[in-house]
Each structure stands twice: as structure tokens, then as C-alpha cells.
């Protein structure tokens, strides 16, 4: 991994919102690295802060949101220190984004062509005519049939899948370095989902983009991503390359998630969802945020928040089990799997 150039390095990002009921820390410790030309998946349950993470990177938060802390290093430069004008030059040009809701993400009063052209005219100094020609090419690139006709359509004339293709065409208009895809298939039918996934993968390879792929679906991650950051309650809790994560997940939460997936390779009596609920952002546990649901939680877990630690392979994990301070047993049983705690040498002895 270290051989690769890191195009985006997010460090301890924290974003909060002012609400009527107080401050909500939607993102509270997100770190990950995106190597150039690779795809990173950000997985987590709904409400874990995935969208807010991506909106924070582009600095597109709603007016009640602020980035409290952290760094977003794009090619070594901290985007959080950029002026608004510098950010505008970047958005839709070097870093672009597609959203979860294709039905509402396109402006209803402009044609597809006008909306694609806008970025081209803005960032590439194209004339209206050139942009119109390029828009047709882009629609063709994303697999829209008879693109020369479609380019004149209004969004309401297109299906959800077609609209998401238009969104993709729009985001690719200026050959971005990074594409952020925020649950691009969640709102679509299953068959369309597969097509859109395939399209993104294909385009990523052809255009050599780096992709941040946000999803709540681990199955999708396995198919599309090189690296994975697992999010829980506003934090990145495990970061690893995709092979390691699926073969040897370390975090209790990740193991639990994988356990709750239907699998084809082994016999399963039943799927086991993780017990309990995601903590409310107004009432976060003081210690590890997963502790109330974790089968291995100890007093340490409940009292103190673990840090995101990097291991010898460059993978990261936020869990006391793998730290020097672990106060539980040295062999920990997690959802039927055993993990060896890092332990404290001889001090980690079973009580009897």
C-alpha cells in the first residue's frame, strides 16, 4: 500500500450540526486513505455518518453544519484550508460526486444536456456548442441509448436508472481525479443496481479514477472495492484492504456485520443480526460506541474510547482488544469466531 500514491488522506475528521436539541456530532473521528486509482468503500449502517463524511470532504454541508476538526489532504493540500473560490474550482472538476437519490438530484426545469454542459462550460471553458457535443458523448459513455435524443430530455422523461446514469455522466464530465459515489444504487431496482455498479467499475478502470464508494451493503463492497473503511456511529472503526477485511475481520462490529450477511460458501442455520441498536447521536456512550452491543465489552471498553490504531500492515482498527491495555481474556469469542487479543505479555493470564 505504501508504494501507492495517496491521493486523498482524511485525518480525524469531525463534523457537527447545530440543532434545536443541541449539537449533533454526525462525524466524530473519520480517517482513511485513498490510494490513487483505487476504490475505497465506506460501509456503515444508515445514520453512521457516511454522507456527512463525503459532504464534508467537498465542504457542501447544510448551513447548520461545521467541520470542527481534522484534515482532508488532497494531493497533500488540506481542503479545509481552501477558500470557497478554490473549492468551487475543485468541485465537479477534480472531485465530483453522485448522490443516492437519482429521482430528485437533477434539476427538473433543465434538460439533461444543459445540466451536463454546465460543468463543462464552467471548468473546461467550452462553448455551449462544444459542451453540447461532449454531453452526447458522455451520455454514450454511460450507456444511454440514442444519446443525441436523450440529451434534450428533461429529467421527468427518464427512469431512475437512466437518471443515475445521467448523474454519472455529469460527474465524469471534467475527468475528475476522485469520484465520490454516495449509495448510487440504493434507490434503484436490483437489476438496475447491478448495471450501475458494473458501469462505475468499468469507468473507473477505463478512466483511472480514484473512487470513494459509499454503501451500507457489504456485498457490494466485496465486488467493487480495493479498500474498506467501516463506519459506526460517526467514526471509522476498521480500515483494511478488502481481502483482509473479509478474510480476517478484527473488529467485533465488522465480524458481526459479516455474520449477518447471507453466504453461499458455508452452511448457515440462520442469519444472526447484531443485538441492540445504534446509539443516538444525542446520547453517545462515553467509551467505545459499540460497547453496549459488543459481546466482548469490558469495563475498559465502557469507560474509555479506543483510538484508531494502525497495525504493521497499514490496516487500522479502533478496538481495545488489540491494544496493550486490553483487560479481558486473551482469546476472545466474537459471534462464534475466535480472535487473539494482543495482550500484555505475561500479564494476560486467565484468572484460574
Amino acid at each position: 500500500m505504501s508504494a501507492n500514491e495517496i491521493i486523498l488522506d482524511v485525518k480525524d475528521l469531525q463534523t457537527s450540526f447545530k440543532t434545536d436539541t443541541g449539537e449533533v456530532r454526525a462525524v466524530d473521528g473519520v480517517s482513511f486513505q485513498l490510494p490513487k486509482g483505487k476504490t475505497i468503500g465506506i460501509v456503515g449502517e444508515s445514520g453512521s455518518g457516511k454522507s456527512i463524511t463525503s459532504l464534508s470532504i467537498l465542504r457542501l454541508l447544510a448551513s447548520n453544519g461545521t467541520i470542527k476538526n481534522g484534515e482532508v489532504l488532497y494531493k497533500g493540500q488540506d481542503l479545509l484550508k481552501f477558500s470557497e473560490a478554490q473549492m468551487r474550482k475543485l468541485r465537479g472538476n477534480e472531485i465530483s460526486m453522485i448522490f443516492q437519490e437519482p429521482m430528485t438530484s437533477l434539476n427538473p426545469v433543465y434538460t439533461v444536456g444543459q445540466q451536463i454542459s454546465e460543468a463543462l462550460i464552467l471548468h473546461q471553458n467550452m462553448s455551449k456548442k462544444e459542451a453540447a457535443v461532449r454531453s452526447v458523448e458522455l451520455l454514450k459513455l454511460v450507456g444511454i441509448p440514442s444519446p443525441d435524443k436523450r440529451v434534450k430530455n428533461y429529467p421527468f422523461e427518464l427512469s431512475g436508472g437512466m437518471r443515475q446514469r445521467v448523474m454519472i455522466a455529469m460527474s465524469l464530465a471534467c475527468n475528475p481525479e476522485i469520484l465520490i459515489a454516495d449509495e448510487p444504487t440504493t434507490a434503484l431496482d436490483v437489476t438496475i443496481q447491478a448495471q450501475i455498479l458494473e458501469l462505475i467499475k468499468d469507468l473507473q478502470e477505463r478512466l483511472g479514477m480514484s473512487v470513494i464508494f459509499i454503501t451500507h451493503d457489504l456485498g457490494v463492497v466485496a465486488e467493487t472495492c480495493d479498500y474498506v473503511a467501516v463506519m459506526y456511529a460517526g467514526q471509522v472503526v476498521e480500515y483494511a484492504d478488502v481481502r483482509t477485511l473479509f478474510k480476517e475481520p478484527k473488529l467485533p462490529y465488522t465480524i458481526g456485520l459479516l455474520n449477518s450477511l447471507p453466504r453461499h460458501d458455508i452452511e448457515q442455520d440462520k442469519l444472526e443480526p447484531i443485538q441492540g441498536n445504534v446509539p443516538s447521536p444525542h446520547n453517545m456512550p462515553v467509551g467505545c460506541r459499540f460497547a453496549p452491543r459488543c459481546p466482548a465489552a469490558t469495563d475498559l471498553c465502557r469507560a474509555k474510547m479506543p483510538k484508531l490504531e494502525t497495525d504493521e500492515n497499514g490496516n487500522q482498527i479502533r478496538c481495545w482488544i488489540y491494544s496493550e491495555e486490553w483487560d479481558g481474556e486473551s482469546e476472545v469469542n466474537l459471534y462464534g469466531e475466535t480472535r487473539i487479543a494482543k495482550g500484555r505479555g505475561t500479564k494476560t493470564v486467565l484468572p484460574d
Partner: protein
Amino acid sequence: MTKFIIRRLLQTIPVLLGVTILVFSLMHLVPGDPAQIVAGEGASEQTVENIRERLGLNESIPVQYGTFLGNALQGDLGSSIRSGRPVMEEIGARFWVTVELAFYATLVAVFLGLIAGIVSAVRHYTLADTSIMIAALFGLSMPNFWFGLLLIQWFAIGNWMPESLEFLKMRPSGWGDSWRQIILPVLTLGTGGAAIIARMTRSSMLEVIGQDYIRTARAKGVSERIVTYRHALKNALIPVVTVVGLEFGGFLGGAVLTETIFAINGMGRLTIDAIRTRDFPIVQGTVLVISVIFVLVNLIVDISYRLLNKRIDMN
């Protein structure tokens, strides 16, 4: 779309028929003998009988209505009892004065209302927003006639702009007079309308600014100005168009007080004068014309809203 327009056109037929029935009944709903009322107290038996004859009151009610409707369809609304001139002619002379007033009032309302509404939405929850919204509340709650009188006092009598007193001279006819003659009545009508448009524009803009496609535009790197004017405004204006249309219709029919205060010889004053002099045919004529215009304006507003909104509507 053509189907919608045809259906909508057909729907106006019963409405218009209803209007004619109401207008026709005006004369018969007044307690007492209409002929006697028209003739006035102390008129001779012969005069009353003549008037009854002229108004066709000797026929049965359905026959009277049939005649009224038949004539109305041919553009004949009878003639004025006072002047003897055909009602349509009397109305025709005043109609364009009112249209002019309503037109300029709508222009003022749209201009002021849009600017205020957009500023308010873009700077919402700031001092500018609060001030505009308080002003709009004033504009809404202040009775037109009172505001008109205030304007007369400030501008005309207070000598800031003595020329505006010219409106007090009878205006010969519609278009082409000095703007000074119409500025005060136009402001009187227009500011109330501006208040409504400002509030509508503000809430519509605020709603649109929260939409996903606005975020998409920002993610494209578009500047806030373009987000506001290109992406948000065009969507936000769709419901505002309806309000503007209805306001224009309202100004046409509802300028009675303003016309009276400023002594403008429009349809409103014609109606008031006719009521005072119990000139039934004129009252019927003006009410009918105003109602028909209102129905037509409504129709146009409906169709244009549908045209503008079709892109959104169909999904």
C-alpha cells in the same frame, strides 16, 4: 395537455352560466319592485310602467333570463337607465382605464415582490429578512384605501410631488398619460400585491434551496449566485406565477376603493356610481364583465401553471 385545456375550457361553461344567473338575479333579489326602485320614490305610475316595460319585467322570470342570456351572448347588455347609452359602450370607455391600472399595479407588485422575496430567502434569518417580512406584513394588513389616502397626503398634498395631484383631474382614457397621474394609485394597489408575492417567493425559494438538485449544482462547482438565480429561482417561480395571475385578476375586479379614492374613471367607479343611482343594467354589466374576466384569468393561470409544472407533475 390539449386534453387538459379542453377539459378546463368545458369546466368554465357551467361557472359562467352560474355567473349569468347570479347577475340576472341581482335585480330580482333586491326587495321590492325593481321598476319602482329604479324610478325612485315619488315617480309617477306612468314612469314606473315605462321602466318596467323597458326592463322587460312584465315577462315571466325564465323568459326574462332567456332574453338576458341571449342578448348577453351577443354582447348586448341593455342600455343604461341614466344615460341611455348601451351598457357595453359605457363599460368599454372605462375598461381600459382599469386594465391599465391593474397592469401597472401588477408590474410594481412583481418587481418589488420578487426582489424582496429573493433577498429575504437568500439572507434568511438575517436583519434584512426580518425587516422585509415585517414590511410585507404591513403591506398585507394595511387596508388599500387607507394607504392610498396616506400616499395622497404625503406626496400630493405634502407638496413632494404636486404633479401627482393631476390624477385628481378626471382621466380622459387609458394609455399614454403621464406616469405621474397613475403612480400613486398604482403604488396603492401594487404594494399590497408585492407583499403577497414577496412572502410567496420567499417560502418557495426556501423550499427549493433545500432540494437535492441544489446540492447537485453546488457539487458541480457552481457559484452561489448561479445556484440562486439559475437553479433555484426558476423552480421557485412556478407557484409564484399563479399568485401573480390571480392578483392581476383581483386588481381588475377589486380596484373599486382605489379608483374611488383617486377619482379614476374605471370600472370600479362605474359600478359604485351605478349602484348609487340604481342603474341596474350597468351594475349587471360590470359585475358580469368582471366575473368573466376573473374566470378567464383563472383559466389562463391554471393552464400556464400546468405548462410550467408539467415536467415535475408527471412523475
